[in-house]
């Protein structure tokens, strides 16, 4: 079975500017994947190519086994898209717009009405159905845009900054909505809010200047192979002892703590009693250890490490 989304060596040029550079990734059916990147990194361009709005300069993209260029209509039947900033027809009423989009997506009669009613209920839009979309607040516009994407129960959902402009309660509602789709629908979601992605996505892709830095940030992270150490001794002595223990792959200074205490992050290949071995070695060398715990690197750290590392390489 082909992946839900398969991009191979995709590049997009806007005139002399390269917006996306040789990007390849695969997303399996039922996965919820986050796409992270600073402004202008090429996230929206990738989304526009996935949904058939833009044509890649080179490379191929398949959605649900259909090529986005050669079988554009089949792709557009399989995928639903929430563009950034929720563009809507301002002269239409909410109900009218949702019904228009339902028919555009091939729904008819009672099926169209049921789909519109269902989406309106899920996004709590029932009380604004008779208002013109042009008179709605930013949050309501965003919800209308998400509601139109749910019409017709699409197999693949592509959401570009779906929670921007929403209040905290609405953010939680959208997060719950996306999580409820896990397993049955494929969701690709872009966001600037890193904790948001961390809560929703099973995997994160990080994009910088049109280049995909990693397609597995959360998987790497959830390998759970980092220990946090707080100890009082010269850095060199601690580094020599710790890196000499079998299973330790590397070590960084996290921050200098109060007094003479320093904090370190130790990357390890997990094995039984590794933490005990480290502790025994340090205590045996007369080093006072105040903390040694397994810690989860947050996504923000992964993102910053990758983007800064890449920027350093570029420099």
């Amino acid at each position, binding site marked *: 079975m082909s992946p839900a989304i398969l991009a191979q060596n995709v590049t997009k040029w806007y005139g002399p500017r390269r917006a996306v550079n040789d990007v390849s990734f695969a997303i399996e059916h039922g996965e919820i994947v986050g796409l992270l990147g600073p402004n202008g990194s090429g996230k929206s361009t990738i989304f*526009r190519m996935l*949904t*058939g*709005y*833009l*044509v890649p300069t080179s490379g191929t993209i398949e959605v649900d086994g259909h090529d986005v260029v050669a079988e*554009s*209509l089949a792709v*557009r*039947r399989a*995928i639903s*898209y929430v*563009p950034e*900033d929720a*563009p*809507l*027809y*301002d*002269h*239409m009423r909410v109900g009218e717009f949702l019904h*228009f*989009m339902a*028919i*555009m*997506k*091939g729904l*008819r009669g009672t099926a169209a009405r049921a789909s519109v009613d269902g989406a309106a209920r899920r996004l709590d839009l029932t009380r604004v159905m008779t208002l013109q979309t042009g008179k709605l607040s930013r949050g309501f516009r965003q919800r209308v845009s998400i509601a*139109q994407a749910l019409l017709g129960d699409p197999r693949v959902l592509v959401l570009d900054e779906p929670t921007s402009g929403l209040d905290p309660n609405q953010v939680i509602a959208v997060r719950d909505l996306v999580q409820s789709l896990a397993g049955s629908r494929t969701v690709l979601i872009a966001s600037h809010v890193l904790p948001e992605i961390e809560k929703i996505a099973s995997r994160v892709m990080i994009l910088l200047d049109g280049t995909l830095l990693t397609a597995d940030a959360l998987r790497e992270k959830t390998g759970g192979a980092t220990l946090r150490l707080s100890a009082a001794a010269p850095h060199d002595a601690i580094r020599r002892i710790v890196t000499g223990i079998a299973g330790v792959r590397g070590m960084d200074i996290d921050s200098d703590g109060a007094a003479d205490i320093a904090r370190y992050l130790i990357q390890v290949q997990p094995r039984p009693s590794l933490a005990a071995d480290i502790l025994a070695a340090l205590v045996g060398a007369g080093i006072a250890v105040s903390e040694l715990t397994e810690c989860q690197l947050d996504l923000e750290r992964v993102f910053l490490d990758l983007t800064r590392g890449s920027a350093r390489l570029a420099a």
Partner: protein
Amino acid sequence: MRGFAVLLLKEERALFSSPIAYAVMTVFLLIMGYSFTLTLFISHQPSMVHVFFQMFVLFMLTAPLITMRLLAEERKLRTLEVLLTSPVSEAAIVLAKFTASMSLIVMLLLLSGSYPMVLAYFGDPDFGPIYSGYLGLLLFGSALVGTGLLASALTANQVIAALISLSVFLILWIIDNFGWLLPSPADTLVVNLSLAVHFRPFAVGSVYLSDVGFFLSVTLMTLFLTVRALARR
């Protein structure tokens, strides 16, 4: 087909909920009413020939106002992104916009139908040239709308879209005046690009297949290019 129907309905609503359609109708009826009355009082002839020529010029000036927003506005407001990522073909989107704009052209022609009715009431006009004149205006209008739609597909700025189509219309209106100065066979080629040369026979009661073919070709070619402009992004 259902996608086309719902798109057409959307376009008709957008067109007739904007002030542009009513402004165009008002200006058109005011100028044509004045022109028809003046022509009738001066010539005392039950003929529509002069009126058709004035409608020809007025169509060139008003068509850009009707077509400028069709795709440029969608591009600027980014609703084109919503439209073009929905499972409807680019051809259906373009045809719906074309048909909606043509409905305003047809409405202007129907409203001007009161002039031949006045002529028939008070005199005995020859209806042959009147029918051919209306056929010519319909075909001419479709070529203008097609060209305006193409101009609107090329930019996100409505004013620029209107200026592009107006410039093309004005050049193709007067191009025969310069075409006669060119050596053969360039003169024939350039003169035959003229909108006026192909419209003139309709206004005086002659329907040539070459003229019908010219306006239909311009319409089909511009619609095809508009679809291509949307498809190759």
